[in-house]
């Protein structure tokens, strides 16, 4: 792998991990959405770069879809949803921000420890991409664990999916069917989410999952 191509791929993939960290750090809803848009943008660049160095032109499609849906449309839609529903603009975080970020660092360490020994035969680029992708996936999971607000759950999930796309792009020659389906599923997910958020707003006073959780079997009817 020649130096510069590798360096840029490394920088972009690592950048995604860093932006995932920034997602953990946010305490305001709009900032969270904006950082998610940034996350997707870095993903687009990373996938686009992979397309260039692998000469896999179908990856450009993936990058394009990610750009349009994840970096532009979804953040815009989420902004509108938040504004229209009048959701609380500040987020409640389980545990402190510092503690969460420490846990996040532990997760990144875990991802690296898990991924590097098992991929000794894969090529360097795929290997590194995979380690970063797993880190992004785990950080997305963690974001979903520590935030109870529905919008941030959705964002956590989508950042997790960004990690998956990164992994798919890093796997050399992975067929297109999967990538389109990922992008497509995001679209469907958006519809479902949008529908859900609106309905949830109709029926409940908040989209806070905690409020929904208090409603459980036994207290019913």
């Amino acid at each position, binding site marked *: 792998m020649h*130096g510069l191509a590798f360096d840029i791929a490394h920088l972009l993939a690592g950048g995604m*991990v*860093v932006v995932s960290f920034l997602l953990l750090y946010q305490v305001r809803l709009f900032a969270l959405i904006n950082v998610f848009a940034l996350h997707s943008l870095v993903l687009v660049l990373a996938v686009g770069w992979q397309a260039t160095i692998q000469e896999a032109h179908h990856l450009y499609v993936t990058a394009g879809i990610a750009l349009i849906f994840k970096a532009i449309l979804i953040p815009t839609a989420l902004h509108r949803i938040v504004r229209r529903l009048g959701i609380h603009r500040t987020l409640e975080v389980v545990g402190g921000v510092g503690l969460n970020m420490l846990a996040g660092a532990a997760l990144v360490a875990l991802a690296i420890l898990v991924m590097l020994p098992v991929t000794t035969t894969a090529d*360097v680029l795929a290997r590194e991409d995979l380690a970063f992708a797993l880190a992004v996936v785990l950080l997305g999971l963690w974001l979903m664990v520590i935030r109870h607000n529905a919008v941030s759950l959705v964002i956590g999930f989508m950042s997790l999916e960004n990690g998956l796309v990164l992994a798919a792009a890093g796997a050399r020659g992975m067929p297109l069917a999967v990538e389109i389906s990922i992008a497509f599923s995001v679209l469907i997910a958006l519809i479902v989410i949008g529908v859900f958020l609106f309905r949830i707003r109709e029926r409940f006073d908040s989209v806070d999952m905690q409020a929904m959780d208090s409603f459980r079997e036994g207290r019913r009817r």
Partner: protein
Amino acid sequence: MALITDYLVQGCQMLLVLLLAPLLTGWVRTIKAQLLRRRGPSPLQPYRDLLKLLRKEALLADSASWLFRVAPYLIFAALWVAAALVPTFASGLLFSWTADLIAIVALLGSARFFLALAGLDVGTSFGGIGSSREMMIASLAEPAMLMIVFTLSLLAGTTELSAIAQFMLTAEVGLRVSLALALLALIMVAIAENARIPVDNPATHLELTMVHEAMVLEYSGRHLALIELAASLKLLLYLSLLGCIFIPWGMATAGESWTAYLIGVAAYLGKLALGGFLLALFETSIAKMRVFRVDQFLGAALMLGLLGALLLFVSRSR
């Protein structure tokens, strides 16, 4: 003869940082004022202030002990040495083997320790608040700084600043996430350590928020002058640190011709001017954060440093 030249160059560097420090502070103030559409003082104003303070009588509180009087000298000495050790216009100078990142962190730490003690010594409430806040900031900034040191030394294989700077000039460094993270974390630490805007405001005496100013409130005359000078030196130190690690271009190596040294000085001045400008720009565009948010800010710096060290293991596996 060579030895004398070496001493000379090293001495030049020590004098250079001492002389440049107030200018840098003044430069930042001027830029800030102009960004706010004020005319602002001349960049030379800090020199006049210092001279004025030196001429004035130093007043001491009744409750002040010897520590209070000694502290300014200690702080000034520690910071001057630290600032003079960081490679500025040339790397590999005579004392460069002492210019170890950990040593610099230790010097900064002891300066801070004495400053906090002095703040407590007089027994006023402001001093106490300032000291306790300073310690809170330090307890997060120092680990973050150490993480950065860790990242850099893992990368370069040494903690010696000159060697790091020379390593950064080689092509094998490449673009690395870890470096970007270290840069970001170092900037955050620098902002906190120098009591700049989102963490502390050097230009106010508002009791709710002030940290650094609260500790030095009781000082006057030559003591205050020394502390102000030390603060300027600290700012210079951090900018030189950023410059020599992340933009080492133009720096001369010891033993080169005088023209190389001159180019080095010019490059150094350029870096400082740029750094000061960016700092002023940043400070005017952002609001001061609540004291309670400072730990999150520095926690983030710590995490970035940690992440940088972690990600290093990915790229090292190549």
